[in-house]
């Protein structure tokens, strides 16, 4: 079975799954580690190992239970072939006293089964408990670090770290113990074989070398074919995404069947690679499958010769055959060691997330809300070492509206982020009603500042929840009306109770839900970061009216592209190259041709 997906290599809580199957996700080089020094990396690895130890600790008593069960099971498993061999010898001899041989076998079998059952339970339950603890910790930490963490790790990468990697770390105790537990019978078998007859051990060792060679060849060959297969797969996927983006066009043109053919064009290529993958696997699988039986046959052959020489009994021959099979399990032990290696690198990746510093909030929680006077004092903000905003000094009086304009890349969004502490300045201070934002407690800060974005991400189960978030549900409707969203929400299948992911929304409609969320929030400072860019003129006009009438008691910071928006604001901050080029009313700035040029449209691109 070609194993091309990380998903199919998932741990299922059963020891029987093959740990030697290659390929799993999450091995991509971690961004954010490139700049680390060698020393930092070494101590990083130590701290990652400490994380593994902590996971072990947090798994409760399960790892201990597992260790006892697995090791006891391994030892008993090692004793069993010998006992069975002795029982065979005793029982096939007519008239011999059967003695305890049979009862010992029964006892050993019962112990093996019991140990196995307990081990399965302990491994599954312990891994689940550890993964859960680690995942919760990662989730809490990611939320505490906030949006800053997205600059460090791409979204998909972060999901892998909190998901698959946490799971791998959780399985680390199990992998370690299993590897040890598998080494016991593997190593023990070799000793047992040597004890029965040294020649058996020689035959066995020679065979083992063969296994190693075969497994290595298998790993090399699979990867190249798998890559071709994955490329064909992603070709189909991206054609599919293309076609879905044109869903309305396709529906209107009635070209669904044409599109199906187009999307599936790489299917023949996929099939070719698929078959090649199967045949590589078939070849390698066959090689792997034949080694153990041949090893066993060789051991029996050598044992048989010793038997006819009178050096070995029938029971010992049987025991030797079983030991050969048991000893071949060393391959699986290596597989588990490999898994432990993966758990270590997963721990490092999780640790890199946990190492990001959380945002520190102050204690200050002013009882009476001020008018919302916003002040930026000598603010400089850098992104990846380069200053993007420089020496910004400005004051927005309480209840005033300030538009932020400038060409793209001039730092508008960063100004919006720093004004409500979604980002901290590298230098300077941002104050709301005279209190530095850093001194406010998290609840006080978030109660005071509301944000709306160009591409808002909505959460909550229904649209009503997406708007109200932490506020009482009664405010949804009024806020939606101010954001010109009420009419279209009421036309959705279940009105305000429509689940977010079942609401067909255009970019403009989503934007209006985001606006409604900010309006419902009710803080004294309202920051709109490009939040009306996808609205048509009529709707934007309605929202603008709400901003100047219903919401006029709040301080507003509005990042805008349109001159009309700037014209309605009390004050315009004109940014250029991260600095303030002009600060004043729109009609004063308008006299400057360079200011007017900011609003000019270039080319056919989006405005």
């Amino acid at each position, binding site marked *: 079975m070609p194993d091309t997906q990380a998903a199919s290599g998932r741990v299922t809580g059963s020891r029987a799954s093959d740990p030697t199957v290659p390929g799993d996700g999450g091995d991509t080089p971690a961004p954010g580690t490139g700049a680390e020094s060698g020393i930092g990396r070494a101590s990083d690895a130590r701290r990652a190992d400490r994380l593994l130890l902590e996971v072990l600790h947090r798994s409760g008593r399960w790892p201990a239970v597992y260790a006892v069960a697995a090791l006891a099971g391994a030892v008993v498993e090692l004793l069993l072939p010998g006992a069975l061999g002795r029982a065979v010898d005793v*029982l096939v001899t007519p008239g011999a006293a059967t003695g305890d041989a049979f009862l010992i076998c029964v006892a050993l079998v019962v112990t093996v089964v019991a140990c196995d059952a307990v081990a399965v339970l302990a491994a599954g339950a312990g891994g689940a408990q550890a993964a859960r603890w680690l995942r919760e910790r990662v989730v809490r930490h990611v939320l*505490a670090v906030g*949006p800053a963490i997205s600059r460090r790790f791409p979204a998909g990468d972060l999901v892998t770290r909190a998901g698959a990697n946490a799971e791998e770390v959780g399985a680390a105790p199990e992998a370690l113990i299993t590897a040890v537990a598998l080494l016991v019978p593997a190593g023990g078998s070799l000793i047992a074989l040597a004890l029965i007859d040294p020649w058996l051990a020689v035959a066995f060792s020679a065979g083992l070398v063969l296994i190693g060679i075969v497994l290595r060849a298998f790993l090399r060959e699979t990867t190249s074919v798998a890559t071709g297969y994955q490329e064909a797969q992603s070709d189909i996927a991206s054609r599919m995404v293309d076609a879905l983006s044109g869903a309305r066009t396709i529906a209107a043109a009635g070209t669904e*069947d044409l599109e199906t053919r187009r999307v*599936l064009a790489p299917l023949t290529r996929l099939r070719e690679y698929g078959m090649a993958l199967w045949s590589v696997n078939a*070849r390698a699988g066959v090689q792997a499958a034949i080694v153990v039986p041949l090893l066993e046959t060789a051991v029996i052959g050598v044992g048989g010769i010793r038997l006819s020489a009178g050096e070995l009994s029938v029971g010992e021959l049987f025991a030797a055959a079983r030991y050969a099979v048991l000893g071949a399990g060393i391959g699986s032990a290596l597989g588990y060691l490999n898994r432990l290696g993966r758990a270590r690198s997963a721990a490092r990746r999780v640790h890199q997330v946990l190492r990001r510093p959380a945002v520190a909030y102050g204690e200050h929680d002013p009882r009476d809300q001020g008018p919302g006077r916003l002040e930026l004092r000598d603010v400089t903000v850098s992104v990846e070492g380069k200053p993007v905003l420089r020496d910004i000094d400005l004051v927005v009086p309480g209840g005033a509206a300030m538009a932020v304009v400038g060409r793209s890349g001039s730092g508008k969004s960063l100004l919006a982020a720093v004004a409500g502490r979604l980002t901290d300045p590298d230098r300077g201070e941002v104050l709301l009603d005279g209190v530095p934002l850093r001194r406010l407690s998290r609840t006080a800060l978030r109660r005071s500042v509301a944000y709306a974005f160009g591409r808002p991400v909505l959460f909550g189960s229904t649209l009503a929840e997406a708007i109200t978030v932490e506020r009482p549900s009664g405010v949804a409707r009024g806020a939606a009306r101010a954001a010109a969203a009420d009419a279209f929400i009421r036309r959705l299948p279940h009105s305000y109770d429509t689940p977010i992911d079942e609401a067909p929304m255009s970019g403009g409609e989503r934007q209006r839900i985001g606006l409604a969320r900010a309006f419902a929030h009710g803080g004294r400072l309202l920051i709109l970061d490009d939040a009306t860019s996808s609205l048509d003129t009529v709707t934007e006009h309605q929202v603008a009216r709400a901003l100047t009438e219903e919401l006029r008691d709040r301080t507003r910071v509005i990042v805008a592209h349109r001159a009309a928006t700037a014209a309605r604001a009390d004050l315009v901050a004109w940014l250029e190259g991260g600095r303030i080029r002009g600060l004043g009313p729109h009609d004063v700035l308008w006299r400057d041709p360079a200011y007017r040029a900011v609003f000019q449209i270039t080319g056919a*691109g989006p405005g």
Partner: protein
Amino acid sequence: MRVRDLLWQAVRRRPRHLARLLCWSFAEAAPSFVSGQAIAHALDDGFGSGRPLVGLGWLMILAAAWLTAALGARQVLLAIAGIVEPFRDTLLRQVVEGTLHRTATSGMRPDTGAVARLNRQVELARDSFGAVIAVVRSFLFSIMGVVFGVLTLMGAVLPLVVLPLLAGLSLFLMSLPAMARLQRRLILAEERTASSVAAMVDGLRDVAACGAEERVAAGVQQDVEFQARTSQALARLTAVRTLSLAVGGWLPILMVLAATPALVRDGATAGIILGTLTYVAQSLTPALGSLVQGVGVNGVRLVVALERIVTTSARPPATSTGSADMPRGMLLRLRGVTFAYGPDADPVVSDLDLAVRDGDHLAVVGPSGIGKSTVAALIAGILRPDGGRILIGGVPVDAIDRAAMCRARVLIPQEAYVFRGTLGENLTYMAEGRSQADIDKAVDAVGMTELAARLGGCAAEVDPSELSAGERQLIALTRAYLSPARLVLLDEATCHLDPAAEARAEEAFAARDGTLIVIAHRLTSALRARRVLVMDGARAQVGTHEEMVAASPLYRDLMGRWEAPVTAEA
């Protein structure tokens, strides 16, 4: 049951591979028959009676059986590939077809993540189907080999082997439904955790801005906890299940041992006992183990994946289209048309009356979300009204043959569709076989000459991700211009063009033969139209620009603002 049909068809459609699979399975099962026999003879006739060469001879036979089995296993795997690969193709086709048709019908666009998940389900289904075929088949053949092998060694031993096996098997089958339930719950829980973590990561900025950290953390933790509880329950059940393996795999060994003195009295040799034990230890126990693992894990995974594929890729019932030909005249008439997106929803369009003459130029104006796009989709016949009638040339839209309808009208939505292919393929998407001269004329009329030249002409490959939204719109507009349709519906199809480019494109369509209906993004579109439909939510009014300025307060208000001094609008 759809899932069962799917699997059954996949196997039945490949009779050649099925035959190959069964034939080679015999070869693969050779050791399970030969092993015990070879060991028994090697011992009794060879090593045990002082003839080591005979013993080695029997072991060579055993080795040969293993080699045969290896060759057989390879062929078996290829035969499984011959069944499973076409199965993957079928599933993929179903997913693509179903998703495209469904998206086209519902207008609900699945996100790219959902597409990726669906693709992964297909891969999962393929892999686990292959595994299940391999495991079940190998189990059956191994058991057959063991039964025949034991019978030929000594018939009396058979019950000692088979009875515990059957007991173990039935224990396993009894645990299977509960196991399957938990396994399925775990798969779903894993997916839910992954998607809630992904949602959290996507929304970090918004979560921080809303101060909703606690709430979001609690939501994710609920999923994490549920997953942990489910995997613990699964671990408990798996532990209990190892008992069935013990009964089926270990009990035969103990029973044979217990019966050995009696068997020896009945004439069993040491070789026979050892042979039987070899059968159990070497063939039966591993076969049972992989069956339990294979069916218990892969089987459930297969069913879950298939169920997901079947439900999410089901093609919507084809909307019954009529068979009437397109009428000659293109007079468009809406009579009392009402439409809502759900039983609990306010109607988007209610009781709308409208008549558009052939060759007319109508602009539709109103706040977004008020139902302008819905009106366009209703006229195009993509949506069916809940009440009222829509007639073209006197024939109801739903009575007209779909293909004819698709030739007669074209609807260009706001999000222009450009696919990977040549520019020419993109432009003639709805008008195959147009001459180069026609194409050039259209390119010039709509105003994309410069863009076409920059892209390198009709033969050049285009990559939609390298085009701006405005450039994509120009391509879609030219495509519509080239189509044979007499009714053109532009649903904010020029919103990413600058005002001058928009004017040029709209004028080209106005000069083109046929009817033009423009859903206006900017109000300037209304000034160019012959008539204007104003939708303000409460009602819809239609008339010339002057008439609407006089009759509609909303229109007057909008136009007043529009003509205000601040004109530099993007």
